[in-house]
């Protein structure tokens, strides 16, 4: 075999290994999560764990109910979605369909910049600006609430939603738009009757991926949602999320204790939630191509 072919062969295999490694690591991580998390089932029933309303992990005996944590995560995510989805889609429509080239460039750069801000910085800014604002506007005892978390996380979800939704709008065949305009539809009618429905699956995928980003976010929510593990009744209350719980408590948990296994079980719950979100996003994206 000539030297070139040998070189080619090795490079090909190296790339193959790199590709396989990423899958291999995911599998390893999942096995580890399962191994550590399922050990909890020896001491507590899954029903009590998922639906228990009290989270006192370091008491004797520990009370490990994660319902308030699940609801806290969902509440913050829902709030963030309500804020970021309409704004994000509107922004994508503007960039893809309406904005003149110059504004488009500026907007796209701005959104990329927004995506580049580290979450701890957003959390810190939220803590000193947003939290007092929320407290004063709603006359709350404290501004460390689910709402503050939702607003800050909406900023984080927006870049994902905008850029993927924008791609989806671009990939609508040009003939659709031309056809609609030729039939006498106005620009706006074309956008919301033709472009948006045609790009719907891509936009849904954008929303799902944005939500996926939000539910896994840790640092910012830990800094501004107050982390009180009580059952949430309103968005103006402090909540404790799944991610913040793991981050705050992993350092303390004695390795091999019930608390330690419980945190891994929380990790499994989180993994399952984001897995569902990502798979459904993938399904939507896939449907688009057919």
């Amino acid at each position: 075999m000539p030297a070139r072919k040998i070189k080619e062969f090795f490079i090909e295999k190296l790339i193959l290994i790199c590709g396989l490694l990423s899958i291999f690591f995911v599998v390893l991580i999942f096995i580890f999560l399962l191994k550590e998390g399922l050990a909890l089932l020896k001491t507590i029933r899954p029903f009590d764990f998922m639906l228990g309303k009290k989270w006192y992990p370091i008491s004797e005996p520990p009370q490990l109910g994660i319902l308030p944590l699940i609801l806290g995560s969902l509440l913050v995510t829902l709030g963030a979605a309500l804020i970021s989805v309409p704004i994000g889609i509107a922004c994508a429509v503007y960039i893809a369909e309406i904005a003149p080239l110059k504004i488009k460039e500026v907007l796209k750069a701005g959104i990329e910049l927004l995506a580049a801000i580290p979450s701890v910085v957003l959390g810190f800014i939220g803590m000193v600006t947003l939290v007092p604002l929320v407290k004063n506007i709603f006359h709350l005892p404290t501004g460390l609430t689910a709402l503050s978390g939702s607003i800050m996380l909406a900023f984080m979800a927006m870049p994902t939603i905008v850029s993927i939704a924008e791609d989806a709008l671009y990939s609508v065949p040009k003939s659709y738009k031309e056809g609609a305009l030729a039939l006498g539809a106005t620009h706006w009618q074309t956008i919301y009757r033709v472009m948006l429905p045609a790009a719907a699956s891509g936009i849904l995928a954008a929303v799902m991926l944005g939500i996926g980003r939000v539910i896994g976010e840790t640092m910012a929510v830990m800094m501004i949602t107050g982390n009180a593990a009580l059952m949430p009744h309103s968005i103006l209350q402090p909540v404790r999320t799944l991610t913040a719980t793991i981050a705050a408590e992993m350092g303390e948990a004695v390795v091999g204790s019930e608390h330690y296994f419980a945190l891994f079980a929380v990790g499994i719950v989180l993994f399952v939630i984001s897995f569902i979100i990502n798979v459904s996003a993938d399904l939507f994206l896939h449907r688009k191509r057919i």
Partner: protein
Amino acid sequence: MLRVIFFVLSLGLFLNPVFAAQNKNNIQVKGSDTMVNLAQAWAEKYMEKNQDFVAVTGGGSGTGFSSLISGTCDIAMSSRNIKDKEIALAKQKGIDPFEIKVALDGLAVVVNPKNPVDKLTIDQLAGIFTAKIKNWKEVGGADAKIVILSREVNSGTHVYFKEHVLRKLDPNSKEEFAPDALMLSSSQAIADEVAGNSAAIGYYGMGYISPKQKAIAVAKDEKSEYVTPTIENVLNDTYPISRPLFLYTNGQPQGLVKKFVDFMLSKVGQDIVLKTDFVPVKN
């Protein structure tokens, strides 16, 4: 091929912390957030005179113990005693935790300076933090809902406050922080929230008190005197919520670690304790 890559990777991953801890001129100190500033001050002064390098990291007392047990630090700082569970785990890993008392700390209960309340009994404090007392007017303040601030569960301060104030050292007590207590991840976060929120109450080591917060005078019961958290009151043992601060090493300190520990307990070291608003153990 895969196997080789894996071997190299895992070697790097697993040996790295071991090397870090055994490095000849390097002392890793980890643990209690309460003690971070103090240990940092010690480390800086110590490094002025010595060639050795001391790295100080916070994270909470529990974090310190897990690091000591896993061999990733030489000295664990702790604002609580080591738990039996942790000792058992350490023995399993061949680590023998050795306790050294290096300073005392008064645990200050703080409110916003605008809050008219300036003294409380331990019973009232327990009532407030377990949400049996929900409104400031029940303890002589304005008509406002009390906002409870607590440290996270990885904090030695959290554990100490629960055991000594909420449960009053009764091992059978089942008292817990109210579920709606806000769990903040650092003493500074509590200080900031108290400074900006006139209905908030929080607790932390007295080193964090500033003019933006007001320290509550605390009494053991209604008949006792109300005492403020000052260095004298902790030294003469009249302030009811004070606690020792510890270092833990693997066995009796030796070599470099011994040199650093001796420095902390020396006159210079104990003066630094005073300067960082803690209370020295030796005069």
